[in-house]
């Protein structure tokens, strides 16, 4: 950080994030952007009604207004609890969240019209439920911001979080299929009419654990190495945790029948490892291990079948979704997704004017394809740019924050978010084999929305620490000297045994 160390005017009291007079927080910019995002959401809702009903009802603005109140609430919490947080994050996420609610409402509306039912109310249907989930998610995010005033606190519970993460990942694999399987992937815990995806939350816990572990081990991981072919390779014994996580992700692939989740966990670990050690060799080893594992799984699926058959089939569908044996069968989803996107073309049919209902799972996995038919290539590109903005802002928080733990957590979370978007959007557009991931902030479903809002809250917390003038924190011993921020930003105080 190049921010000058200004002597603290009012020393910070524990647990209170005071704003330093004269320092720009950009909170008003956030408010303005948020208003702009909500206007887009309201216009989207109006267009949907115009196309579906032929008229715009008097209440078209109500969902957008309700969302505005919710986001305004979070904005106020941020003003109080994280005044220096990145002002672009909340408006960007709010726009996507809002459009997601709008699109789900649009599907409800189309279904009600088809069944000759009255227009669904604000809290009815999938759209209404998503609105409620948004409220829940924002409360969680606000609580996280209010309770965790310093992200470094999280590192104290790293081992607990690591254990919780692994347990969360493993629960669906251990449960019988009847309680955990949806569409061939065992990623769920189903209790009665209620189901949650524990893997979504595991992501957060695992990032925190990895970050803590790697901050402790980075010296040994990055320095002790053997040189081979001009690349520094780590010692065998240091490979232990990498191999463990690799096996874990392969187990996920096999027992939960889900390549996407496996890729996500493994990618998350390899990237945090690489960022911590700055060794390209880890990346190379990680990529070789993952793609080697995937290839072996594909071959096993082709020859042995069993637990690998699901993955083999998905890969075959990906290679040729229009093959006669798949086109109206197992490959139907992907084919319909591609046809919907193609029909949308450059400009799309307009919100509410397409037939996204023809794509199965359009409320969850395929929501991006459903949107794509109606907003076209230009609309989807804009959405991708907003996603990219969120991810890059998260990485920026990692770059700017001073401590290694914060860097790793922010970098890991932002990268995982980006990777997840790549995995699902790539999957539904036929770029990579399809895997059942949710589209962050958009897909219907509480687990995903809550977990991702917690992720955003964590990024807000870290970006607040990053952008806060150095004097905002505890003044280092020795007076106005700059903290050794440039030396990998290492803050040894984080690592307490």
């Amino acid at each position, binding site marked *: 950080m190049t921010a000058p160390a200004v002597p603290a005017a009012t020393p910070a009291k524990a647990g209170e994030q005071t704003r330093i007079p004269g320092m720009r927080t950009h909170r008003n910019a956030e408010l303005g952007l948020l208003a702009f995002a909500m206007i887009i959401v309201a216009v989207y809702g109006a267009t949907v009604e115009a196309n579906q009903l032929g008229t715009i009802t008097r209440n078209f603005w109500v969902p957008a207004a309700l969302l505005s109140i919710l986001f305004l609430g979070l904005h106020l919490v941020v003003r109080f609890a994280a005044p220096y947080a990145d002002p672009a994050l909340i408006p960007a996420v709010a726009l996507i969240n809002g459009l997601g609610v709008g699109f789900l409402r649009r599907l409800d509306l189309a279904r009600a019209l*088809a069944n000759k039912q009255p227009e669904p109310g604000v809290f009815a249907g999938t759209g209404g439920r998503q609105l409620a989930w948004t409220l829940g998610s924002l409360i969680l995010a606000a609580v996280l911001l209010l309770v965790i005033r310093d992200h470094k606190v999280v590192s104290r519970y790293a081992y607990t979080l690591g254990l919780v993460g692994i347990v969360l990942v493993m629960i669906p694999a251990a449960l019988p299929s009847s309680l955990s399987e949806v569409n061939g992937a065992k990623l769920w815990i189903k209790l009665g009419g209620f189901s949650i995806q524990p893997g979504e939350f595991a992501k957060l816990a695992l990032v925190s654990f990895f970050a803590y572990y790697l901050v402790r081990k980075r010296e040994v991981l990055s320095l002790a190495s053997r040189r081979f072919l001009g690349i520094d390779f780590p010692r065998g014994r240091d490979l232990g945790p990498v191999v463990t996580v690799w096996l874990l992700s392969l187990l996920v692939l096999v027992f939960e029948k889900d390549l996407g989740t496996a890729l996500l966990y493994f990618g998350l670990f390899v*990237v945090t490892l*690489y*960022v*911590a050690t*700055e060794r390209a060799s880890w990346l190379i080893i990680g990529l070789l291990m993952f793609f080697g594992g995937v290839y072996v799984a594909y071959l096993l699926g082709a020859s042995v079948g069993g637990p690998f058959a699901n993955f083999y089939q998905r890969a075959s569908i990906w290679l040729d979704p*229009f093959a006669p044996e798949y*086109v*109206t069968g197992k490959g139907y989803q992907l*084919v*319909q997704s*591609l*046809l*919907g*996107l*193609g*029909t*949308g*073309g*450059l400009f799309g049919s307009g919100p509410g004017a*397409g*037939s996204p209902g*023809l794509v199965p799972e359009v409320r969850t996995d395929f929501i991006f394809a459903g949107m*794509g*038919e109606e907003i*076209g*290539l230009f609309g*989807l*590109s804009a959405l*991708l740019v907003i*996603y*990219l903005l969120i*991810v*890059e802002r998260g*990485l920026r928080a*990692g*770059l700017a924050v001073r401590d*290694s733990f914060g*860097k*790793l957590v922010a*970098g890991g979370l*932002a*990268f995982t978010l*980006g*990777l997840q*978007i*790549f995995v699902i*959007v*790539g999957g539904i*557009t*036929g*770029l990579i084999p399809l895997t059942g991931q949710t589209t962050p902030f958009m897909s219907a479903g509480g687990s995903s929305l809550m977990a991702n809002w917690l992720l955003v809250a964590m990024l807000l917390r870290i970006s607040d620490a990053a952008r806060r003038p150095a004097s905002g924190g505890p003044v280092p011993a020795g007076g106005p000297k700059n903290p050794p921020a440039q030396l*990998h*930003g290492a803050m040894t105080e984080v690592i307490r045994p």
Partner: protein
Amino acid sequence: MNAPLRRAGVVILVLFGLLFANLNWIQAYKADKYRNSPYNGRVQVAEYSRPRGVIEANGEPLAESKATDDRLKYLRVYPDKLVYAPVVGYKPVNGAATGIERSENDFLAGTSNRLVADRLAEMFTGDNSGGGNVVLTINNKTQQTAYRELVNNQRNVGKGAAVAVDPRTGAIQAMVSMPSYDPNPLVSHDSKVADAAFDKLNKDSDKPLINRAIGETLPPGSTFKTIVAAAALQSGYTEETRIPAGSVYSHAGAVIRNAEEETCPGKEISLKEALTESCNTGFAQLGVALGADKVKKTASAFGFEQDDLTVGNLDGSGLPVAASRTGAIANPDGSTDQGALAQSSIGQRDVRMTPLQGALIAATVADGGQQMRPYLVQRLLSSDRSVVYTANPKVLRRPIDASVAAAMKDMMVSVVENGTGKRAQISGMTVGGKTGTAQNAVNANPHGWFIGFAINESGQPVSAVCVMLENVSGGHASAEAARIAGLIMKAAAGRGGD
């Protein structure tokens, strides 16, 4: 740690770049292909928002659209069900159409360039005028006679086909395939009903979805002797030329016998008598004497080996016709396999023919040696029934000259008047033809064939037919085919049917 974080950012940028490039590929480059894919339900909603045109024959609808209160606004209905299904085909909600429904799809749907005026008018008036109508060459009486007689054949044969064509124009008068199917459940808007109906038909071992008149090739048996006879006449033989015969002919491992003891037991027989009695030993030896090249050349001159013929619209697409083949008739080293040549000359071994090809041989003989291109679409009418297109008959090829045709006609008439084809006779008309009984597998009953033509009092050829019955039990397989052929030609001449 910042350098690797920045690189992670670059990785994300690259991944998003890939997503963006792929979206461009799908939504820009492939967009049209996906938009018009038969699997795309969105196209269906648009397609079914406008009534599809009528397919009709003699003013009667064979396929029409009825309004529904469904998501898809019009349902396709086929009033005559089984009789016309192999020709008309069906247009399912999902998947590919068949028959005329497929080949004239653009016109029926109203998207053809021929209907630009309709679409322009629609833009201004807002009326949904519907697609164009297709008038077939099919003669309802002939078609119904052919279907009824084929299905109610006296030998309880379950599989077969019949084609009747006007020798002077090539217009198809009847085209029947047995067993047929009811297209109505296949076009149900309920995809479960449609899929179940399709699966059932598709799994049926009798293959009802195949139009056997054009889509299946079988050994033609003795009907192929017309080709060998034409080849002989082309090479200087006359009807009266004596050719070697006998009760048995053994050559290069092939043993040829006649169907009956009393068929051509003598040492020699005239060409005309050989055809009339369907003398196997005579034609086997004649084929060997002419050589494989001449036999194959004459066969291709009549249309064998053509694999791109379609029957539908003379200006455009139609129903694909399977290629009839003479087979290799060659040893592995390329020299002629004499045994195979002997067997091929009586329409066995690897010779395969469609019923349509059989009808075209008869039509060529009846029309003085020229073969008209067969077609099914007589007229295309716009939605207000103004004529957009009328078929203009075309000569497809001239396999034989007029004198050879005249000799062939004389010999084939002799077959019906004095020989194996007597059951095809029609009082008051001159009928010519050739029977065929084709062995096809060990322990299987032979296929019965008849190809022939009818000439009215004023000397005009009015119809040429081919009737094929698969695996006929009880001997004289071709006799039943000849009887049915006679009734079909009679109906085509306007003398029979109901």
